[in-house]
């Protein structure tokens, strides 16, 4: 049995009170309940406060570049799709710098579970606006307030027919843990947007602000109806739904790549006995 201690990494360098601590807690508990050992999964992260996440667990880790989490995770997953791959990014990381990769990872429906620690602000670079910052929010770098509209990642993902779209709240660990487990068990690409208060730089979207607004989508909500999911995805402001917003049963990318249907690429033998003969045949077309 896996224990919480098995998944304990370095001491986090986050600010006291940061929403990341609860996300870390929920994640470790989810993995324990799923009985996943550190050796059983790979975490790919980018740059930002969320990027440090895998160092604070114990797991196979590729902490790559800002915005490039998904392409690295895609390469890993295509090389070894028997291994669960979790991508961890921030809102600047995934919705700003790496926005194009998000669109195409959703299109591919590759079995990556993407957790976005969405604090609506740039933490590591100390308080500039992010793609999900509230319009009009004043920061040091946006003295006239944020002039661009807020990116709605949930609506974007539903519009792209993302295989699983979910939202959690860092202030509700028990609920978040449950969502994480559903996300990890999902077959296909999953986006989990996690509302995460930034106690240092974001004075708008605080714990209290969220607590007054978030609500569970509830048992009578059908996440498999895309049109109602789109309506649900547009809810923001006075009431913010959390839970599984949308789910479909699209075939995954891995299922559609013929050469990895039987075995993951990593298990293909290279340099076999008849390798040379097989290659010599490839030359025939040039004669």
């Amino acid at each position, binding site marked *: 049995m896996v224990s919480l201690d098995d998944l304990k990494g370095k001491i986090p360098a986050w600010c006291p009170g940061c929403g990341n601590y609860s996300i870390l807690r929920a994640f470790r508990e989810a993995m324990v309940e799923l009985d996943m050992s550190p050796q059983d999964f790979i975490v790919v992260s980018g740059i930002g406060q969320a990027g440090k996440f895998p160092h604070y667990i114990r797991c196979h*880790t590729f902490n790559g570049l800002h915005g490039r989490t998904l392409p690295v995770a895609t390469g890993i*997953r295509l090389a*070894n799709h028997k291994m669960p791959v979790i991508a961890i990014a921030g809102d600047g990381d995934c919705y700003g710098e790496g926005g194009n990769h998000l669109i195409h990872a959703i299109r591919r429906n590759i079995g990556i579970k993407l957790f976005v620690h969405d604090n609506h602000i740039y933490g590591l670079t100390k308080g500039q606006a992010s793609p999900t910052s509230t319009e009009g929010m004043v920061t040091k770098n946006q003295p006239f307030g944020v002039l661009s509209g807020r990116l709605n990642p949930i609506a974007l993902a539903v519009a792209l027919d993302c295989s699983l779209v979910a939202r959690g709240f860092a202030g509700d660990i028990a609920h978040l843990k449950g969502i994480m487990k559903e996300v990890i068990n999902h077959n296909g690409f999953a986006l989990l947007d996690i509302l995460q208060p930034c106690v240092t730089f974001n004075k708008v979207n605080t714990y209290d602000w969220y607590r007054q607004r978030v609500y569970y989508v509830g048992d009578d909500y059908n996440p498999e109806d895309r049109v109602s999911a789109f309506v649900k995805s547009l809810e923001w402001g006075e009431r913010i739904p959390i839970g599984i917003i949308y789910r479909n049963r699209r075939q995954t990318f891995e299922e559609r790549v013929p050469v990895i249907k039987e075995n993951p*690429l990593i298990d293909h033998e290279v340099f076999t006995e008849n390798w040379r003969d097989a290659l010599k045949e490839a030359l025939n077309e040039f004669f």
Partner: protein
Amino acid sequence: MFSRSGYHVFTHQEYESRIRGGHNFYQIRFSDRPVTSSKSIIDIIVALDNDSITLHGEELSDDGIIVYDRAMVKNEYTGDRFLHTPLLEIAETHGRDRIMVNTVAIGVVLGMLGLEMDIFFNIIEDTLKKKGSEIIKLNKDAFSAGYRFAVQGCLRCAFSVAPREKSRMLIGINEAIGIGAIASGCKFYSAYPMTPSTGIMLYISGKAKEYGIVVEQAEDEIAAINMAIGASYAGVRAMTGTSGGGFALMVEGLSLAAMTETPVVIALAQRPGPATGLPTKTEQADLLFALHAGHGEFPRVIYAPGSPDQAFYLTNKAFDISQRYQIPVFILTDQYLSDSQWTGEPFDFNDFIHRDYRIRDKSLEDIEDYKRHAFTENGVSPFGIPGTSKHLIITDSDEHDEEGHIIEDPETRIQMVEKRLFKKIPLIKEDMSSPEFYGDDKPDTVLIGWGSTWGVLKEVVDMLSKNKRIALIHFQEVFPLPNTGKLDYLGIFKDAKITICIENNATSQFSRLIKAETGLGFTHHIRRFDGRPFFADLLARRIDGIIG
């Protein structure tokens, strides 16, 4: 046709950056001896439009002939040099379709040369197998009619070409790189299409099913290189390919590969820049870009093959070296090479390097204390792969400790730079092969080149060596510069009266690299940066002028 008849062949083409139309030409040179470049003098021109006559008429040799059809070029030419051939009319009469003009033209040329018809009949049958017997018959009829027209109508034709013994391999450099990659165990290729590198991806994706390779057309070059890095981290050999502008987007990923010590092979097919430049033309102007690309300091290797044969073996070496030292390795080509086809000996797979550097599952489990970036004597840490062992594979684009976790302390930083950079470089240098020496062993004049100029420079040496003491030193393994133990190329440069560095760029990039690394300068430089390749005869004349 010529390679099947046993001739040595070199072809190259020029085309415009558009899907249809514009002025395009395809040059075929064949000989009973090896040919490795294009010439500026042409014996037979098949002009399918009037531009072909006005633009290339001057390139015709003294005995040369221009084949044209008044109806197609909409012009009338008189004189011995012109052979009017009713290509369209023959195509419509015998092939029942205007599209047969190409087949008729081939018939005319082969008739002029007196080559046997049977070999071409076989080619028609092989190529058009899927189209059915009716199409094959029409093509044969169109071909034969063109052939007969030339035999009866070209009274000046004095060419005599007999078939030789065996068929030769005819291949382009992108296919050679593709086969080299597959043979080296490449299992993953991710790229964004970009001329002139796309051929590599096309070749490999065509073989993906047969050899079990995942080929992914990425959303952009940033994704392409990051996917390759991900796949490589997970334990499969991975490669990407692009041209200058796409590589500009990959630069950040290159630095990531270096920091995480993840092997990756990058084919960089050059074309003239800056920006979009001349997208379908040729240049060797990204050498210093590839050399300096990426933030921070890290080791890399650059190979620059000059022929499909060299590309094939260097691709294998690229995979081996990149895995052995866990570094990025470049295969630098250009449009001229990418759009040329060469005959050569069949590739030999027996000399291929097949070494597996990975440690996974059982072999990793057996190591008591594993760290992905462990300090070792030669700077290379055991290449562990995430899998069924108890050990975790951790790596980071941040500076990291031996385990792979973020650090900021100066001591670890210094040790890591020593490990990644200083310890590996001398070992890598030892693995670099000497440049190729060709020509007089005590030369007064030395030509220096790298990459795609190999074929043309060898022919220049052949042309001038009758009355000059001349030699070529050609680099195919460009960076780091090879040691001088096996071939003292620096000594040869110093001893020569004239050293001429010949490059397809405006600023003599290789010459600058030699100067920076060795302090040595060359006496002369020849640069071509109009987007076109060098031609042996023109270049020989120019070099002859310098030698005096």
